[in-house]
């Protein structure tokens, strides 16, 4: 077993120096006072956590929660029939799965930028509609909540498709046949047999989409144009422009706490299936 111990040395170093230490420092900062020139100072305080219930920050938290929830629901509605299609696609399954995953692995930034290109005032959609004479003034498609929602859905859709597909694959087709034999129409069989049985995949997908959406920073910043402030932007802002590290640290801790709560127990196997 000496080899195993030796092999784990760099990983333990990772855990201590790049995972636990940053976490501990942020936890420490969240309990300190903001310095006069930024940075942190004594004394210890719980003031930063108390500020989280300020209506201003509470509304940002609520907005982030609702945005993540909306993105999760839209992803579920879009992903379920797609997963159903792929699981019934016979020998072409893997091709379709790769079509789902390919844009996902290429570049998140590029995929978000693509919507900027399509939605802006002089973007493809507005230009096309104007040249067709449908509209005369560009539609305000970009820099609003809708654009952010669209960006989040587009960004994390594969996270919903894959777990649902994985549970559909494990589903016994005889159950659907039985439902049909007993007189269920195809749609009824889907809603009353397939959908309830794919609950584990739906839960896993919902958590996998909800978590990154809750902490999203890039999408609201780029497609919301600074107008859609979510909790991820709040953290970034406290650490940069506002230079209030203790408060930013407290918000980070809150986010981490929520994520840990959601993930613990539910997800380990599902994440393994994904990568």
């Amino acid at each position, binding site marked *: 077993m000496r080899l195993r111990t030796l092999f784990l040395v760099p990983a333990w170093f990772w855990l201590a120096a790049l*995972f636990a230490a940053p976490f501990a420092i942020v936890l420490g900062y969240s309990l300190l006072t903001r310095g006069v020139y930024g940075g942190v100072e004594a004394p210890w305080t719980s003031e930063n956590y108390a500020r989280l219930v300020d209506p201003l920050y509470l509304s940002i938290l609520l907005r982030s929660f609702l945005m993540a929830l909306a993105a999760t629901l839209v992803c579920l509605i879009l992903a379920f029939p797609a997963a159903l299609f792929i699981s*019934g696609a016979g020998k072409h399954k893997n091709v379709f799965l790769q079509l789902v995953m390919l844009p996902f*692995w290429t*570049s998140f930034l590029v995929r978000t930028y693509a919507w900027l290109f399509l939605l802006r005032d002089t973007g493809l959609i507005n*230009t096309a509609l104007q040249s067709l004479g449908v509209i005369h003034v560009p539609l305000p498609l970009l820099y609003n909540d809708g654009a952010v929602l669209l960006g989040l859905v587009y960004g994390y859709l594969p996270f919903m498709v894959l777990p649902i597909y994985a549970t559909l694959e494990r589903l016994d087709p005889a159950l659907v046949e039985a439902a049909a034999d007993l007189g269920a129409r195809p749609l009824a069989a889907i809603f009353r047999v397939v959908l309830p049985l794919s609950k584990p995949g739906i839960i896993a997908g919902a958590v996998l989409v909800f978590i990154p959406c809750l902490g999203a920073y890039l999408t609201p910043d*780029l497609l919301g144009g600074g107008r859609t402030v979510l909790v991820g932007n709040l953290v970034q802002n406290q650490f940069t422009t506002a230079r209030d590290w203790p408060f930013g640290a407290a918000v980070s801790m809150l986010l981490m706490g929520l994520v840990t709560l959601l993930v613990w127990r539910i997800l380990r196997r599902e994440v393994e299936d994904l*990568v």
Partner: protein
Amino acid sequence: MKRWLAVYAVAFFAFLHLPLATLAVFSFNSSRFTVWEGISLVWYRAIFRDPQLLEGAWNSVIIALVSTILSTAIGTLCAYALWKRGSRLLTGSLYLSLVTPEIVTGVSLLALFQWSFRWLGWQLGLFTVILAHVAFCLAYVVIVISARLRTISPTLEEAAMDLGATEWQAFLHVTLPALIPGIIAAALLALTVSFDDYVITSMVAGVDSQTLPMVIYAMARRGASPVINAISALITVFFGVLILISEKVRAA
């Protein structure tokens, strides 16, 4: 029913791929505006005349290569060791690092660097970005290689050791060769994830370590430009091919 699903699937895949496809098509447009004027490579040439983009790309390549080599090496050893005997603390931490919101990882690494640099007198730069990238790439590597290890029977190493191989020889000559496809796939994945990262990188980068995504992001915040379309198309095609190779290798 099946036909409706197929119709839906067409719309679904169009939604997934059309935005990137139109982006790529318009990167060949000779006009600066979103009106088609004719095919031209002018925006691709513009990439190579933009010193910021070139410097960013160069930094990104160095960062991605170094952090891929480091995280693949550490991750391979770690996955192998965990395959011998698990560690809930380590596995749990790796999974948690994977789902931690990027911005939280970014600010906590920034806090760590700033805090330790007070004693060391160092500054943010390429190496802080590389450390940060190793920090978030490791979990991907361990997961991919662990999946490969689960297909290998531990009895093979036992047999080798019964025949007189040492622990080290059993690893080097029995398990490691069988892991090569997994290691390649993991490295390609780490390369992709590292090259693409903006959020964490932007928090820990110094003035001399602007990466390609950071340059693109700054340009995109000023509005869309055909030069970004061109570089986006290059990135998409390059990493699309890389991931396809990785999938093929992993399936082998």
